[in-house]
């Protein structure tokens, strides 16, 4: 449905600063009906990518194809303007026009868009779109008299009313309070799935990304870092950056000692086996990524096989209610793990840690610095 190849965009430097490369050869593909998320820290190029898809920014080079036809192709000199791309978009600020009523806002794409509809048609379609977001009763309300959540729904109705080819969502949840954000997350996902529309979603929040998407593309400094299902990205990060960005992990540096389907790494507290992400040869530096939830405490003799088991001492416990955040020391290495609130431990207890090999992932170290972080 949406195919992007080699997208590049540089912003000229202002005031003597060098030009910044917002996009550095971004390529990806979104399937029909897929909920696709562009994820990354601010300044990674995710919003620029979305603006390029919308036609609000002009890439320097590359191609953007929607369906069968290109909407942007720097080689063929094609640049379809935003208003002819048949898209729907929800903006970060919602961009609800304050001088119109709810009805007028939603009717706008039908009245002034590419394919103008007859008046009678407009009425029924707007009513349908408002019913879909459960705002049918607010049709005549002036737009400024809406709450944040209601504005969000109006923006959704406006983005869907003209049956666009693709729905673009630009951090639509970032302006809502925490509780509303949780409920809107499920609601948006259910809505776009019931409509069956291809959706491109931009966010910097990994919880949103994991909870809503069919597929996630993680970006950094204008390049794609990793793409895959939420499960893949969370459990099989291909880099320290992904591991760190997707949630808390223990990052343990070491040296590869064994390769294969299951590889092994020598760290400062022993040899761990795990799944390698990337091409390693014995002797290569690598980082073991162990999620705090991947480790468990076992009793002597509780496991048949003592591999990937390490004795450690509990350094601190932080009771949070649903979990107990626990820090253990394994030789010189501090590790973070989550314990059940029903298990009783005290600082200083000697314990036995178990890391299942398929819960541990090896990734190449960061090029910039080999610093080990455990957090």
């Amino acid at each position, binding site marked *: 449905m949406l195919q992007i190849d080699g997208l590049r965009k540089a912003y000229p430097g202002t005031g003597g600063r060098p030009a910044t490369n917002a996009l550095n050869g971004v390529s990806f593909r979104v399937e029909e009906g897929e909920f696709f998320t562009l994820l990354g820290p601010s300044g990674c190029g995710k919003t620029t990518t979305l603006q390029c898809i919308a036609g609000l920014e002009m890439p320097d080079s590359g191609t953007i194809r929607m369906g069968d036809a290109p909407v942007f192709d720097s080689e063929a000199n094609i640049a379809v303007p935003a*208003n002819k791309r048949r898209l729907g978009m929800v903006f970060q600020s919602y961009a609800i*026009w304050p001088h119109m009523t709810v009805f007028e806002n939603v009717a706008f*794409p039908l009245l002034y868009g590419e394919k103008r509809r007859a008046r009678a048609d407009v009425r029924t379609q707007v009513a349908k779109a408002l019913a879909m977001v459960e705002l049918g009763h607010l049709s005549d309300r002036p737009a400024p008299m809406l709450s944040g959540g209601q504005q969000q729904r109006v923006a959704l109705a406006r983005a869907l009313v003209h049956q666009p080819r693709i729905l673009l969502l630009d951090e639509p949840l970032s302006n809502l309070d925490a509780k509303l954000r949780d409920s809107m997350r499920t609601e948006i996902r259910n809505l776009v799935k019931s409509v069956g529309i291809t959706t491109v979603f931009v966010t910097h929040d990994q919880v949103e990304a994991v909870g809503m998407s069919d597929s996630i593309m993680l970006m950094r400094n204008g390049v794609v870092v990793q793409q895959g299902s939420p499960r893949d990205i969370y459990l099989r990060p291909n880099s320290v950056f992904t591991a760190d960005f997707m949630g808390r992990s223990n990052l343990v540096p070491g040296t590869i000692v064994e390769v294969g389907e299951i590889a092994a790494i020598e760290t400062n507290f022993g040899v761990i086996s795990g799944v390698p992400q990337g091409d390693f040869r014995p002797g290569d530096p690598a980082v073991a990524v162990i999620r705090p939830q991947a480790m468990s405490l076992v009793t002597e003799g509780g496991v048949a096989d003592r591999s990937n088991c390490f004795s450690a001492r509990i350094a601190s416990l932080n009771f949070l209610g649903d979990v107990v955040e626990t820090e253990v020391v394994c030789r010189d290495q501090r590790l973070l793990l989550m314990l059940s609130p029903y298990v009783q431990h005290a600082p200083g207890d000697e314990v036995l840690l178990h890391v299942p090999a398929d819960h541990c992932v090896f990734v190449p170290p960061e090029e910039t610095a080999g610093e080990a972080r455990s957090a």
Partner: protein
Amino acid sequence: MTAVAHHAPGRRSSRFGQQEVTLAVLLLFVGLLVLGPVIILVRTSFAPSGSMPLETWRFTLEHYVALFSSPSTWKLVYNTMIYALCSMCIGVVIATAVAWCTERTNMPGRSIVRVLMFSWMAVPALVVGFGWILLINPGNGALNVLFRTIFQVKGAIFPLYSFWALTIITAFAVVPTAYVMISGLLRNMDPQLEQAARVHGGNGWTIIAKVTLPLLVPGLLSIGIYMFMAVVQTFDLPLIIGLTARFPVLSTRVYLLSSPDNGLPNYGFAATFGVLLLVVATGLMWAYLRATSAGEKFRVVTGKAFRPRRIRLGGWMPLALGFVFAYCAVMALPLLMLLWVSLNTAYVTPSFDALPGLTLSVYSRVIANPIFVRALFNTVVLVVASATIVMVASALIGWFTTRSGSRAGKILDAMSFAPMAIPPIVLVLAIVLIYLRTPLYGSIWIIVLTHSTIFLAFGVRTMSTALIQIHKELSDAALVSGASWFTSFRKVTLPLVWPQFVNGWLWVFAHSARDLTAPLMLLSTTNVVAASALWNMWQFPDLPGTAALSIMLMAALLLFVVPFQIYTARRLETG
């Protein structure tokens, strides 16, 4: 393609979208309006005398030699500077005092004063000037006659035709504009800065002297330079008072050279004086921009709307009230005098004995005059066309300067701001030089063209400030919804800045009606407007007729401006 896209990050559509066409048209329009006159002016100043502009390829420095070797040139520059400096200082001091009373104290009647001040901007300086002449001319000026009978003295108490009379009358004329700017400055000042001084032990006067005034200095400085520039550029008051007082300034000199009472106009020499005036004004503009950016550093004026704490006047109340309302009374005097004169068929000094003789016959005589009908029609065409052209162009230019960020947008911004530094008299002279031989010359449209240029800078400032506050996503949403660029502008952007659009429209409307410079220098048999008709009747002389027409013009302008000001003032007090 790549190169083009790189240089124009804001480009949204393929080669010839609505946006590109509009931008090209605007660049051409503003270029013709602004750059054309300046180039012609400079060219003419280098042309040999006796030749018509645009008809010779010879270049000569003779006018510049004459200009710099004549001692009268330096006298003119000195006159202009000292006149502008004195008027500006008096005007800014009065305006600051009044603004402080209405914005920062609990003086009663402050809303009325505010409405009066804003509305006063619509009163033509020309009309006020006539009023003052009738009040204090040395022969039969009403005040002079009054004081003569009271004190049994000979001669004139108030010497109208003198440097100081001209300066003070000009100062009164600049007060409303200075007031509007200074009250904005005071209103937007963060009251916490003063509260902090109070908490740390400062008393009322210490706070004013040590906190309020120093914080205001950068803002006042830039307003002072702006008003100085405005006085350097004024033409009407130096014309009606300064010439008789034998106090020529640069603007009246340009006028006399290009429209002499007898003999041929010396366009080359006039253009040279015009270039001199242009250089002076550009220097002031530069100083103004520097001062404004220095003011930015203090960050006293933020976008936030504050509710400044009002100082309780207590025992000072009568003084403040007396000062503000005495000032308003002095402002009203010339208008009352005009009203009096317009109600008598021949000039009579105001007195109770003359009351029964009052009549409206002068009004019916003026209205019956065919010139009146023509002037009325032309004035309506002039003010409506100028205001509409300026504001539509300004809204579009404002969009490009605030949104596109492209090089073309920056050029457009700079060009549309340039008329601020071109004195109207110089611009009109240049327009005479360009269009002298075209059919446009002598029609009302040449005045429309001139006013469009003069007021463009104001319009673009107004619309840019308004547009910069509109979130970009609002118009992006319209584009993504499928609306064309023009539809999104018309249906989303323009409605959102409509109040500022109307405000700017009214401002241009009023200023176009009150301007004498363009109508007078471009006057023909067919394009007479209210201001030039006034001048003609005054010169004739037909004092009651002039007075009646002045009163009608003023009433018509206030009819439009006052309701809008009352509405705004109400919103300010409640909001």
